[in-house]
């Protein structure tokens, strides 16, 4: 396993997994966030899915498959020991009532102020929102996992969101295939350059302003001159 080369998505997911601590209740969004569970070994980190299950686990084999047990992305999942099922109102009471420690979400844009846009595209019909807005207001910590740029190569880390924002609540951390940013004192701080990425790449592909953290790791200081 350790010899396998991780794809960019897996790298992001693995880095996000390292943020999770014992006894955390964690909600994973659709896409890259779903992969995070693969990199969590602890049996005292509890995954919550808003369609009504606390104690989500990866399916270990085909025999565990049950079409009535799915995550919010409608993918089949397993259940760990101590898991529980509940209705949607209870599930969102957990979210809105700040009983979920961490939400890991994908995004279309995240901006300098820390706002994200991850539910609608201007000019297209707005046909779905799901649980994104509730997670933003309720989860204690929000980690955004995303590719640094979109399919056209434009930065998703923008000066100001041009897509409709999901919430007025600011997110706490951004993890991309190039870098990790943490929000401190109302500013973005670059705290890590990801393996196989360079500081120059981070500079070239990040539209918003950020500070370079003193503790920055994997950082080629020569590029600053």
């Amino acid at each position: 396993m350790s010899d396998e080369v991780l794809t960019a998505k897996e790298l992001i997911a693995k880095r996000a997994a390292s943020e999770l601590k014992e006894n955390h209740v964690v909600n994973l969004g659709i896409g890259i966030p779903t992969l995070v569970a693969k990199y969590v070994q602890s049996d005292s980190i509890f995954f919550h899915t808003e369609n009504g299950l606390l104690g989500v686990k990866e399916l270990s084999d085909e025999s565990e498959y049950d079409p009535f047990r799915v995550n919010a992305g409608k993918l089949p999942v397993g259940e760990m020991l101590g898991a529980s099922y509940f209705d949607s109102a209870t599930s969102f009471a957990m979210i809105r009532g700040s009983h979920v420690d961490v939400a890991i979400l994908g995004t279309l844009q995240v901006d300098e102020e820390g706002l994200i846009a991850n539910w609608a595209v201007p000019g297209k019909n707005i046909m779905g929102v799901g649980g994104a807005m509730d997670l933003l207001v309720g989860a204690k910590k929000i980690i955004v996992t995303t590719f640094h740029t979109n399919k056209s190569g434009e930065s998703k880390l923008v000066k100001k969101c041009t897509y409709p924002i999901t919430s007025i609540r600011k997110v706490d951390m951004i993890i991309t295939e190039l870098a990790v940013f943490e929000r401190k004192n109302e500013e973005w701080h670059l705290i890590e350059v990801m393996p196989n990425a360079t500081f120059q790449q981070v500079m070239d592909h990040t539209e918003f302003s950020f500070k370079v953290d003193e503790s920055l790791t994997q950082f080629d200081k020569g590029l600053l001159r």
Partner: protein
Amino acid sequence: MMGKILEARKALEKIQSGQTLMVGGFGLVGAPLTLIDELTQLDVYNLTIISNNLGEAGKGLGILLRQGKIKKAIGSYFTSNREVGDAYNKGEIDIQLLPQGTFAESIRAGGAGLGGYYTRTGVDTELSKGKEIREINGVRYLFEPALTADVALIKAHKADKLGNLTYYKTGRNFNPIMATAAKYVIAEVDEIVDTGALSPEEIVTPHLFVNAIVLSKKILTKEGVVTR
């Protein structure tokens, strides 16, 4: 006490054109597939459907959409059926999109006899336009009115003959709250057991919420939806 157990068609006779229906399910999981199928056979129009999504293109509630029977849809995620957007663009249906937690809580509030409630979700977003904002202890909340319906079509796992219900895994989702929020509630179930066969501790929906029980004929299995 056999009065609540009905054939699907008989139970659905309550539904009339112009009514508001709640339909349970998160995608196909926990959706009352037999009742939805029967509903597509009925001559009723101008329905307002309160359901998290509207099935998929030409599937489940998506059939009702194609039949032109839906006037308005209230839910949180219509993206899974692209025909919803097309129908909206043509002016064929009205859409009310709510955050999923707001959608669930509005149904819960409706069932609990509340007029509405205040939530932080959606404040200062596209979905808060035209909604009353109120500051409580320094935090801004928006007002959401409760949702109720004429008829709810829900899916449970087991019913006893009184109408007490249990659920199965993530098939529970919106079903128990919808059971509380409609004037007439039809529960489609996998199995009907004798009263007393369910432990009082395992009953999630007590029988007073349930008006009719219908045995499931279309079931979600590992091989997809099958008719039994």
